[in-house]
């Protein structure tokens, strides 16, 4: 019980910190950086929910992000829908793609699934270029309307989305549902013997993961006011996976910290803009070697253990 209260206090403190940060320092530049970090947070959490819990690493998360962003772009610019339709529509579109790609590939063992997802994302990027007349090719779709005109307002909206996403996925992950996903990671045959419909749970978790990634994609589209095929790129997926590894796999909340930490850190290295991806890939290698459980989640557990111990 005490542990839960500390968790809640920690979460509240974190949200308050994120909410106050732009008020203290101000400036549209910082707000922009924070908005991006929060959107990456949504992507990282959604990745962790499926891949972290079930152990099926998804190397093509950018597929769902891109689908969400393009859905928002199409609806808003070509069909004149208000931006508020983007979030539900992009979640549905990403869900459809998750079903299409998940049904054939999720039966596969881990590495095959990872590579199949990677291939899926690569092919979507290609398709965006092939159908350039509809998708705008390399340029993508421009002229997407902002969701909220005030930058600060949009940041708070994105932050609220992150909080809701994380709370929902964390609650799911800590329920019997999440226990089943972790059991699938442990041993599929034993799950079957326990009467668990493994395929259903894997597909369902991919769908949930994709839906939130798609929503994040829509937010990103309405932040950048344009979308490009670059969203589907493998580096997008790798960036997210690095954030999850830094945060701590399967902890759900860790990846939020990982995402925000890495986005802010690389902003500090802004002079080395070209080095950003190099920094990410080297970080990933170092984490894999030296902190296989990540940084954020284990640190929080240690803090909690200290606070929880009676003085």
């Amino acid at each position, binding site marked *: 019980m005490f542990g839960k209260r500390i968790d809640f206090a920690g979460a509240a403190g974190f949200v308050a910190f994120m909410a106050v940060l732009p008020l203290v320092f101000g400036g549209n530049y910082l707000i922009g950086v924070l908005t991006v970090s929060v959107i990456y947070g949504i992507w990282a959490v959604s990745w962790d929910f499926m891949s972290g819990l079930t152990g099926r690493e998804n190397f093509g998360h950018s597929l769902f992000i891109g689908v969400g962003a393009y859905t928002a772009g199409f609806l808003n610019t070509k069909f004149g829908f208000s931006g508020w339709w983007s979030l539900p529509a992009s979640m549905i579109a990403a869900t459809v793609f998750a079903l299409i790609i998940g049904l054939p590939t999720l039966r596969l063992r881990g590495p095959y699934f990872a590579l*199949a997802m990677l*291939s*899926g994302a690569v*092919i979507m990027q290609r398709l965006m270029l092939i159908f350039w007349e509809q998708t705008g090719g390399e340029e993508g779709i421009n002229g997407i309307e902002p969701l909220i005109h005030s930058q600060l307002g949009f940041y708070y909206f994105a932050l609220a989305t992150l909080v809701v996403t994380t709370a929902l996925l964390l609650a799911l992950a800590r329920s019997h549902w999440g226990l089943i996903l972790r059991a699938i990671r442990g041993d599929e045959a034993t799950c079957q013997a326990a009467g668990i419909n493994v395929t259903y749970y894997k597909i369902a978790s991919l769908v949930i993961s994709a839906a939130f990634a798609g929503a994040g994609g829509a937010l990103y589209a309405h932040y950048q006011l344009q979308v490009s095929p670059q969203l589907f790129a493998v580096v997008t997926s790798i960036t997210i996976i690095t954030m999850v590894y830094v945060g701590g796999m399967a902890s759900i909340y860790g990846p939020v910290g990982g995402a925000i930490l890495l986005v802010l850190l690389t902003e500090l290295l802004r002079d080395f803009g070209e*080095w950003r991806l190099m920094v990410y890939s080297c970080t990933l290698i170092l984490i894999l070697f030296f902190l296989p459980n990540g940084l954020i989640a284990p640190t929080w557990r240690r803090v909690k253990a200290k606070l929880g111990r009676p003085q």
Partner: protein
Amino acid sequence: MLEILIHGAVSSAIYAMLAVGFTLIFGVARVLNLAHGSFYALGAYGAYYFTSHLHMPLLPAALLAIGLVALFGVFVEKVLVRPMRRSQLAVLMITLAVALVVEQALFLTFGSEYRNVPEFVSRKFTIGGVDVGGQRLLALGVSVVLIGLLWLFIQRTRLGSAILAVSQDPEAASYMGIPSDRIFSIVMALSAALAAAAGVLAGPFLTVQPTMWLLPIVKAFAIVIVGGLGSIPGSILAALMLGYAETIVGYTISTSWTEIVSVAATLLMLVFRPAGMFGKRAAF
């Protein structure tokens, strides 16, 4: 028609060189090496750098590039992959990270522009009324020779049979006193060298840029899925099928559709026959 026949053969040969190495290291060490495409990119960049910056003649430059990439492959295997081998996913992550590091290193060194790798053969040949670049014919010939040599090496030499033994049953091989760690390094070197050779040979007629590792890895994966992971004859046959399928699509529909072919083939294969066409898990 003849055009399709010739160009299909050239694509197939390049793909086969990539896929055979990819499947070889999987068959032997159960490593799905996502850095495989980087070996290909490094081969092409190496040939470019040694000729245009160090002004070396092409042949030594090419051989040096291939040799260095083989060494790099051994480094990746020994230092980065080996400690991770307990988990296939960790291997996947670490090799993907290596691929990105290589991409970024190439980007930071050479920028994102296309680079020109010099041709061994610059004249064009006319075969049955079809003009074919000499370099393409050379790539075809060399890859057939290299894969043939690899085949002979595996079938006829002591080291080759040790590789075969490890791929079929690592545990039994270690009882027989075969040092499997050394075998992994050797196979990684061979695999990397083959990929680098493909890069050197195909570099002149393909685009050489930092992200060039990605499509080859997707294709190598497609080929080994279609051919059956770990099977060398399977991957050669699948490389032929894919090379020709792409060429036919390129001629009849549009070249921008060719990339779709491999991924569509992968997905179809995964749906209908996950074990691959020649599906056994055994390696050769």
